[in-house]
């Protein structure tokens, strides 16, 4: 790795926001054709560092040097995205920056043409792009609106944007967060091909498996400092996790339990969809007490409809739902009273009222009841005492009782919601993407709590796009594809690869056979 000519050199980068030191004396060097993984938890300073490199922020101290086309290092003018682009730095943001109503071609050439030319010379752009698409294997239709593309295709357009500008350094910020395992494999193949062509790549992630799979070198950031800079081959997942969190991560252990009575039974249930949640058709599902059932699927294939049904936000259009052996009324208040706990997917939108205080949010589902209601009035003292206890028990930090909920970090917000739900000891828990966007520390805390609830006797429906999480936590898994749910399969014997195939519409037996073959091939 040292033999490679350097294309990027960051030295002593420091950046503070008020009292918060986001980056502290960070050195980073990147060679031609190298794939470097930048690993760190939320708030470790990865994004700040890349924003400095890309000119969104100006560093308080330190220097940045980038190699020109001739390979000579030259200082990069700070604070200018234009300069970064001109120096050959391409960035694929976590949230894609495509204009939906513009064509793919327009999105790619945007900003590359001379300002006042009266005509647009698209012929040359198309020719150039055809070559890039061919060479990197980034198939995408140039003439459709960007908004009509799938997530994987949008990412390919983002990479094409950078390549079209002749980027020599490509930064990918959490590129796999939205991809299925198969799409991730495809992305990795593209990245390896590009690296072999000489492109230097920075791969920002907090997913250890992917970092191990794609990178040659790993740099770990914690609290704004570089705590590890090591060849990938010379380390392992456990060591990286510990470096990232700063303490050993306890392995999640799911003890086998004997499931109890069915808590929830769905029998041929249809739920009509809306744009963002999708529909579900003829879904059969049984979830028993002391059991965690995983629901996998690419977003929009029906999980949203199931979550809406169990949250009491959408009535079943057909079929029968039985809750705790009795009837099911699709109404949020009735469900809460019946003992259903709900952890919504979008915690900012559906989980808390951002401008209300922590204690108000903590009693949001219970304020109608004793002990918070006294003589028709809200007993603020009782509510505050209750909230203080919840926050202590669930380790909610970053605010006091009177802090507006929106000021909490994602992890603390989720712990508060979890506390609100679990404290009522619900018999059925709907956990919709409960760890999305959380760093390892907060995610393991949430996962441990869910396992605890299962041990206590709760039936849990865990909807997740994180296949590792599903494989680790659940007893049985079903997969949504185009509104239909596969039968539940025992988690033992499933692999991420098999789930990925089922998420793409392959039948369960087919997926299992295929992955079994691969396993024997490898052996």
């Amino acid at each position, binding site marked *: 790795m040292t033999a490679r000519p350097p294309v990027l050199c960051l030295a002593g980068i420091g950046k503070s926001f008020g009292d918060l030191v986001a980056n502290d004396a960070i050195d980073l060097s990147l060679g031609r054709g190298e794939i470097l993984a930048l690993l760190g938890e939320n708030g470790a300073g990865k994004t700040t560092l890349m924003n400095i490199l890309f000119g969104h922020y100006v560093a308080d101290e330190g220097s940045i040097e980038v190699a020109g086309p001739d390979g000579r290092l030259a200082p990069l003018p700070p604070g200018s995205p234009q300069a970064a682009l001109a120096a050959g730095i391409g960035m694929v943001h976590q949230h894609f920056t495509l204009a939906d109503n513009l064509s793919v071609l327009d999105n790619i050439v945007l*900003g590359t043409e001379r300002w006042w030319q009266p005509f647009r010379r698209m012929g040359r752009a198309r020719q150039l792009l055809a070559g890039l698409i061919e060479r990197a294997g980034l198939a995408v239709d140039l003439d459709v609106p960007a908004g009509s593309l799938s997530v994987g295709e949008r990412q390919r357009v983002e990479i094409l944007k950078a390549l079209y500008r002749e980027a020599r350094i490509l930064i990918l910020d959490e590129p796999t967060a939205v991809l299925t395992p198969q799409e991730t494999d495809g992305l990795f193949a593209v990245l390896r091909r590009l690296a072999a062509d000489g492109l230097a790549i920075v791969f920002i992630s907090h997913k250890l498996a992917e970092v191990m799979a794609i990178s040659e070198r790993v740099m770990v950031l914690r609290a704004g400092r570089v705590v590890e800079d090591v060849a990938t081959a010379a380390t392992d997942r456990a060591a990286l996790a510990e470096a990232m969190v700063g303490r050993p991560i306890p392995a999640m252990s799911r003890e086998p339990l004997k499931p109890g009575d069915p808590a929830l039974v769905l029998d041929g249930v249809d739920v009509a969809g809306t744009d963002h949640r999708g529909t579900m058709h003829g879904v059969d599902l049984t979830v028993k007490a002391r059991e965690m059932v995983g629901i996998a699927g690419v977003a929009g294939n029906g999980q949203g409809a199931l979550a809406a049904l169990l949250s009491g936000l959408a009535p079943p259009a057909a079929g029968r739902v039985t809750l705790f052996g009795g009837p099911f009324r699709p109404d949020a208040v009735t469900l809460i009273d019946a003992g259903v706990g709900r952890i919504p997917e979008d915690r900012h939108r559906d989980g808390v009222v951002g401008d209300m205080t922590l204690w108000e949010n903590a009693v949001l589902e219970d304020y109608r009841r004793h002990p918070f209601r006294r003589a028709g009035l809200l007993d603020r003292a009782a509510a505050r005492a209750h909230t203080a206890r919840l926050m202590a028990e669930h380790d909610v930090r970053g605010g006091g009782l009177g802090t507006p909920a929106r000021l909490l970090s994602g992890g603390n917000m989720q712990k508060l919601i979890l506390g609100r739900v679990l404290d009522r000891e619900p018999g059925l828990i709907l956990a919709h993407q409960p760890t999305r966007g959380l760093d390892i520390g907060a995610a393991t805390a949430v996962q441990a709590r869910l396992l605890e609830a299962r041990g206590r006797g709760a039936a849990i429906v865990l909807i997740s796009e994180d296949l590792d999480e599903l494989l680790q936590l659940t007893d049985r898994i079903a997969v949504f594809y185009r509104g239909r749910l596969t039968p539940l399969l025992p988690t033992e014997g499933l692999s991420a690869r098999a789930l990925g195939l089922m998420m793409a519409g392959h039948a369960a037996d087919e997926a299992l056979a295929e992955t079994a073959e691969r396993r024997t091939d490898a052996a």
Partner: protein
Amino acid sequence: MLGFAVLNPTYETVSDSMLETLDILLTASFWAATLRIATPLIFGTLGELICERAGVLNLGIEGIMVAGALIGWLSVYMGADLVTGVALAFLTGVAFGLLHGALTVPLALSQHVSGIGITLLATSLSYYAYRIILPDVPSPPRIEPFQPIVWPILSEIPLIGPSLFAGQTAMTWLALALVALTAWVLYRTPVGLAVRACGENPAAAEAQGIDVTAVRMGAVAVGSGLMAVGGAFLTMSAFNAFFFEMINGRGWICIALVVFASWRPGKALLGALLFGAFDALQVRLQQTIGGDLPYQLFLMLPFVLSILALIVMSRRAAYPKALMVPYRKGER
């Protein structure tokens, strides 16, 4: 129209009034009037469309048209020639546009509030200036306006000749040319792509090295300039004088026409002509089948029909995604 005729006892049959309407549609004066009424709307709608395509709603349009009407007319009244008057009106619009832009783009204030403020400011400033400059004139002084351009040969064509090739001033021709130019710039040039990108997803534009603030400011400035020229048309080509309340809601009509046009210049022209035609028609219907009906019913006609057209057209309008969303650098 049918309804009006049936209500009207002086008219015996429905077919009579339909024939009347048909007669009107076949006169050159009707089509000439349609174009005349449409011209300020074309300017205003194009101006608003340019602003909105870059992501900035400009509710200052009503006031900017008043200011343009005053400045264009005043320049000529003070001795400037007509072209200079139009240019000064344009610059007046640019100035108000830059004010609106400064408040809403770098300072990211509410586009609604700023726009309404601009309308109130520009309107009252114009009226105030008019009163200060001309303290004691009994009736609004007139200027020598733009004259209709008579094209050789083309003006001999029946119907189209007298209405289009002999009945319209240079400003109407300018408006028509601007429709084509705006469409060209928006869809065929890098500048147009940058403007559309800033209205669709400013973060995407920024990531591609485009200065969103500059593009939005520029679009609002140019768009506001066109609005002011639309106002100037009224004093320099239609009424030849400035008086209070002369813009009379035309700016607001333009806002609706932009939606009607789905933010496309060609459809904006169509919308302006449609409104112009309804307006020209109602004046003529008042004279022919008006009879005992209150004239307000006829005045209402173009607005009612525009609302109906708007409902039909805007159901599938694809509005610029970042319209009315202030862009703050580095924020997600």
